[in-house]
């Protein structure tokens, strides 16, 4: 064996040892480190998401009293039950203010309260991920008597019970009504001949009610979003929400209908 052969053998052996060290020790460890790096990145992203959720939840908690007041206030526009007495009271009050005679109110001949097309799912505040809220319609026919101007002001007031302000905010001071039809005619045929200003205004309108599956606040109370008793069914919370919300807010549908009784 010449010196050159020995040299080649030594070189090849050294290279083999180095390659083995790289492949068996260094490379797997580096791959492991890379994999861990990826896992750490994923965990960091998960942490960021959790932190975002937590901060959102914290913010929701800090705004809870405002949100609760808003939901209760919305109950004046769309109550959880029919609340016909409060509607009559609102109409009577509006007609008095506008010097219009509130002659009659009747449920529309078009039928019973019609459930809306879109379904709603969430019944509890803790239920999360509620889909579109849809209201149950309550058709009514109101008849008023008064002058053109007074009836015009009355219509404005009925619309104005729930209205959006110029800044886009929702302003709720009474029941949400959609006027579908307006009919004005002389109060009597004789008055029409005589040119009297008295008109009979017949309004076809729709009031709205929250779906039966939803309570006013979904079981939440003024202090906590979770129902006081865990066993409370959505129906039970729905029935009790009106009164429970009454304790948490100064303006509620039940408070509104008080004077009627």
């Amino acid at each position: 064996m010449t010196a050159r052969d020995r040299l080649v053998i030594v070189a090849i052996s050294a290279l083999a040892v180095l390659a083995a060290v790289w492949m068996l020790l260094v490379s797997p460890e580096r791959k492991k480190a890379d994999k861990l790096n990826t896992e750490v990145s994923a965990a960091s992203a998960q942490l960021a998401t959790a932190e975002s959720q937590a901060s959102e939840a914290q913010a929701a908690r800090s705004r809870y009293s405002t949100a609760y007041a808003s939901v209760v206030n919305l109950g004046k526009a769309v109550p959880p039950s029919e609340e016909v007495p409060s509607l009559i009271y609102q109409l009577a009050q509006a007609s008095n203010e506008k010097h219009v005679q509130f002659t009659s109110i009747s449920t529309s001949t078009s039928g019973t309260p019609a459930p809306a097309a879109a379904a709603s799912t969430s019944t509890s505040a803790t239920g999360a991920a509620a889909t579109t809220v849809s209201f149950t319609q309550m058709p009514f026919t109101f008849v008023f008597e008064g002058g053109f101007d007074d009836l015009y002001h009355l219509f404005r007031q009925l619309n104005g019970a729930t209205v959006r302000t110029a800044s886009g905010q929702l302003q709720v001071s009474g029941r949400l009504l959609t006027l579908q039809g307006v009919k004005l005619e002389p109060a009597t045929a004789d008055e029409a001949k005589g040119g009297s200003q008295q008109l009979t205004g017949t309004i076809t309108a729709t009031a709205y009610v929250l779906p039966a599956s939803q309570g006013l606040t979904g079981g939440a109370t003024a202090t906590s979003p979770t129902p006081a008793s865990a066993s409370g069914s959505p129906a039970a919370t729905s029935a009790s929400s009106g009164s429970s919300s009454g304790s948490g807010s100064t303006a509620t549908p039940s408070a509104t209908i008080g004077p009627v009784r």
Partner: protein
Amino acid sequence: MKAVNLIPSEQRRGAAVGVGRSGGAAYILLGALGVLAVLVLLYGMARHQVSDRKAKLASVQAQAQRVQQAATSLSAYTSFQSLRQQRTQAVEQVVDSRFDWAHELHELGRVLPHDASITTLDGSIGAAGAAGAASTPTSGGTGSSTPPGSVPTITLGGCASSQTDVALTLQRLRLIDGVASVSLQSSTKAAGKSSTGATGANCVAGAPSFTALITFDPLPAPSGKSGSGTELTASTGGTK
């Protein structure tokens, strides 16, 4: 006599300098050792990195779990917030989809000529594409009784002092905000003492009674501006 080379073999000309007796293998081994040392260093660094990452991973996972638990414990608040948003949006959609009858009555009073008067007014909101129909429109996404696309119409019955004034009235009615079309249904001038139009309007002698149909633009789809993030404002007073 055989010549003998007395120069040491390492120093003879032509021989590799520094190769030595090993023929260069020592250098190869030294180089290999150097590379091996580098590999060992890399291995050590990788090991350190692995243990470091493992510790960090455990720490981040534990922290994420803690934060997640905290978020879960407050999820009821988040859900209530979303309930409020959805309900606000639903009310806003209904509010936005309403037809402003009061505004149109105001407009009617504004544009009506002096020599014309209204005796009857019958307004209704018909289904989309059915101008003049008084059928109840189908419900919208939030159950509005006047969904987008519904067409409001008003049938007017009235008196004018002459047929020219009826024409003027029709022209003026087109100036009402949101009117799509105004069409005359009848204009009758009675030969007798007073005229009675299709709507039963009793006009003074010689004055034609007319009936006109005002068709408004279809109700628009709710605008994108949602006040769901805005605060509700409570008001106890009415508007006049």
